[in-house]
């Protein structure tokens, strides 16, 4: 009984931390990003993930900007694989946490 109570207390304490986890914004510099029609592949693949809230492709800067939902588990290698699978080459990934 005591262990159950401890587990419940830990769960209650950790819940606000999860809820308060900051949304993440990620900028990916992508080589080959010159065509809107072709870059739809990036949007199509990234939006399959539930933790990706928004995708914006900046053709002028050759970058893809993502807004990840709080608690997103998308890692840099996973993100790089998604961009590569959509037909492009990742040059750099930059993350910025925002509450």
């Amino acid at each position, binding site marked *: 009984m005591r262990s159950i109570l401890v587990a419940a207390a830990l769960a209650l304490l950790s819940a606000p931390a999860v809820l308060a986890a900051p949304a993440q914004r990620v900028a990916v510099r*992508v*080589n*080959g990003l010159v*065509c*809107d029609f072709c870059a*739809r592949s990036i949007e199509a693949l990234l939006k399959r993930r539930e933790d990706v809230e928004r995708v914006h*492709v900046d*053709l002028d800067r050759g970058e893809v900007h993502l807004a990840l939902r709080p608690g997103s588990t998308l890692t840099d290698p996973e993100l790089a694989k998604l961009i590569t*699978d*959509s037909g492009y080459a990742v040059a750099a990934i930059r993350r910025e946490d925002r509450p």
Partner: protein
Amino acid sequence: MRTATAALAAALALGAGPAPARPVSWPGGWTAIQDWNPDMGSVLLHYTPSRHWSAGLAARRMREGDWTLVGPQATWLVHRWNLPAAQANLYVSGGAGAAWRDGGQARPGGFARVQGDWENRRLMVMGMAELSHGDGIETVDMQMLRAGFAPFVAGYGAVHLWLFGQLRRDSAARNRVEPAFVARAFHRTVMLEAGVTGTGGVILNSTFRF
């Protein structure tokens, strides 16, 4: 076969999809492509399992030779060069199936194509060579070269416009080299092309991705 030919010709005339458009989509994506020019019309529906290749069903009407080819088609993205401000691609496509001349018996047939392109946000060049064969019917070789520019650089999600000059040689058209002007517009996953050849022929192409 006459009914099938007539139905296919009607379908080709109604649609429009460029062979020059990107023949491999994103993994899990479908693409419908239709092509119409004075020498040939074609329709293709393909599925892309991975970024390296696509497979689908194609039907092509050789308008100069009055014969038809229907069957499965596959396209392999041999290599893609992703550069900081440009992209280039090399594709190989092939298909095999049934070919028939109007009113004739179905015979084995097929085609093979190699296609390459380079583009940045302002300029694009593209080349293609293709060989089509219908057993006991005809063998046709075609080459095409395109170069064009975007009159304005549009952002993501806007309507994009490209203007091309094109040269096309087709052995079925007595080897004449036909110049053409083609305008391309695309928005999101829909691409449309319209053009006119030096002898007044109409070019209508379109591509839909979903």
